């Protein structure tokens, strides 16, 4: 069973082709790590999936063609977590989480219908940020802001979550908190696509890994298969320490490859 399908997905920015003929078929209840060197096109692929930039080729989500959906219908299918968790005004954290209900027509956080208030509450409990609700987001630590951003994305209750480097700039504890929050969403039935540079987290928490290089999908499969020694050498130009711990794949980038 597949939920998100792409065929010949290509993106051209200016005169440069950034993504070449990406073909994906991803199931629900699944966490996919999207990895690749800087400039490989990971963020571009995520944006193309969310319909945030013009792309050639087809994206189908839950049996519907993406381009046939209205902006609001797309927003209900894809919850998008961008890099950096930027918030421009010092709003209460709860209002930020409540923006996750915007695609459902609940545009005013002060007057959320019961169903939407309930979704906000669930999301804040899932990442344990209920007590931060009244704090201004700009006054929160990076880790707290990261979790508020995650709660906003969970509050959409979308079948697909697209997260762009959600663990960047977080301390190890918050990295694990955030990635486990996404893992938990995947376990409840959501398709989670996570862009990351952390091969260790990718290997350990994801069900499958997609490897991008220069805009092309060069490897995919289970973490151990997709991140084989050959791929690490050819794509990342590194060699890694590989092991298994508590039945999960361990990959630690070790040295530059010759």
């Amino acid at each position, binding site marked *: 069973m597949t939920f998100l399908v792409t065929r010949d997905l290509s993106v051209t920015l200016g005169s440069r082709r950034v993504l070449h003929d990406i073909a994906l078929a991803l199931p629900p209840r699944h966490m996919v790590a999207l990895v690749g060197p800087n400039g490989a096109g990971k963020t571009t692929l995520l944006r193309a999936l969310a319909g945030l930039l013009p792309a050639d080729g087809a994206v189908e989500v839950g049996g519907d063609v993406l381009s046939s959906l209205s902006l609001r219908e797309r927003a209900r299918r894809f919850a998008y977590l961008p890099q950096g968790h930027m918030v421009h005004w010092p709003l209460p954290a709860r209002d930020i989480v409540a*923006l996750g209900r*915007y695609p459902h027509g609940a545009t005013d956080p002060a007057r959320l219908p019961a169903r939407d208030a309930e979704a906000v509450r669930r999301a804040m409990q899932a990442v344990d940020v209920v007590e931060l609700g*009244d704090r201004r987001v700009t006054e929160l630590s990076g880790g707290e802001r990261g979790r508020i951003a995650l709660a906003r994305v969970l509050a959409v209750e979308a079948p697909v979550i697209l997260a762009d480097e959600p663990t960047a700039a977080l301390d190890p504890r918050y990295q694990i908190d955030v990635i486990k929050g996404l893992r938990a969403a995947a376990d409840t039935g959501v398709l989670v696509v996570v862009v990351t540079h952390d091969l260790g987290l990718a290997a350990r928490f994801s069900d499958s890994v997609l490897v991008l290089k220069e805009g092309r999908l060069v490897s995919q499969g289970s973490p151990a298969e997709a991140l084989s020694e050959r791929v690490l050498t050819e794509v990342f130009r590194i060699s890694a320490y590989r092991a298994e711990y508590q039945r999960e794949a361990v990959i630690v980038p070790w040295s530059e490859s010759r």
Partner: protein
Amino acid sequence: MSVHDVTITAEIAARRRISSAAALAALVGLLSLISLGIGPVRLSPVTVIEALFGGGSDVAQTIVREIRLPRTILALAIGAILGLSGAALQGLLRNPLASPSLFGAPQSAAFGAVLVIALGLADVRSYALPVAAIIAAFGSVFALLAIAGRNAGLLILILAGLAISSLAGAATALAMNLSSNPFVVLEIAFWLLGSLEDRSFQHVALALPFIAAGAIVLFSQRHAFRALSLGEETAQSLGVDVGRLRLFVIAGVALGVGGAVAVTGTIGFIGLVAPHLMRPLIGHDPARLLVPSALAGSALLLAADIAVRIIPSTSDIKVGVLTSIIGVPFFLYLIMRERRALGGGVA
């Protein structure tokens, strides 16, 4: 803290916003009464209310209802649309230094109006004037946002705004320069110094429909401003059509500012100052700031227009001059406060 407590705190904040807005509305009402009472013949607020509702002497009725009421209505409406435009632009650009006057919108609107007069296309009381002003204001804000691009920083917006204001000012000067008719030059000088003196109900009829339309357009977009707090891309991912929103805001600002400038000339800085005065009371939510900023804009312009009538001077002080003299130092203060964001200050 439990979920229940959080809801209660949110309710307290909501109640505070409502009482602040009510207090502001009362202030605007009071200032309106004072504005109606001030002039060569001073009338008490009680006399003003009597005259307004058809009581009191015939003289008082004529003064209040025919001479002063249009001026007060214009101050109220124009102050409101300037405050609302400032708050909407700040919401759209997520930038506390955005405002119509810093972007050259009133200056461009004035040029549009001046051009119509200088070319002899219409007299000062025809609808051609606000239409030309609106078109010029739309062009200037559209050009500014196109030049600055998406996610423009403070510095780029302010520099582009400066360039557009300068261009509009130069074009206006050129129109004056080339005009051989001294009466036309005099009339043009009027556009450069915003004023509410001697305005009639004809002026109100000229400006109000455009101002109201602009206000409706801007207010209808309020919830999108909140989503934009997360940046354009995330707002788009939440279902906000950012391109369409930009056009709506540009159109709303142009309608409001163009309509206002067509009857009063340029009155600057209300749009910059009003949202800043409201943030400590209302909070930073760009959607909730719109109405309070409009009320604050009304209060500011009414107060300024009362002040120019009270300040003793040999000739009339123009209200546009006063708002700029107060507004520019405020702008400088904001630059000082925001200099870290402006890039590489010592702050």
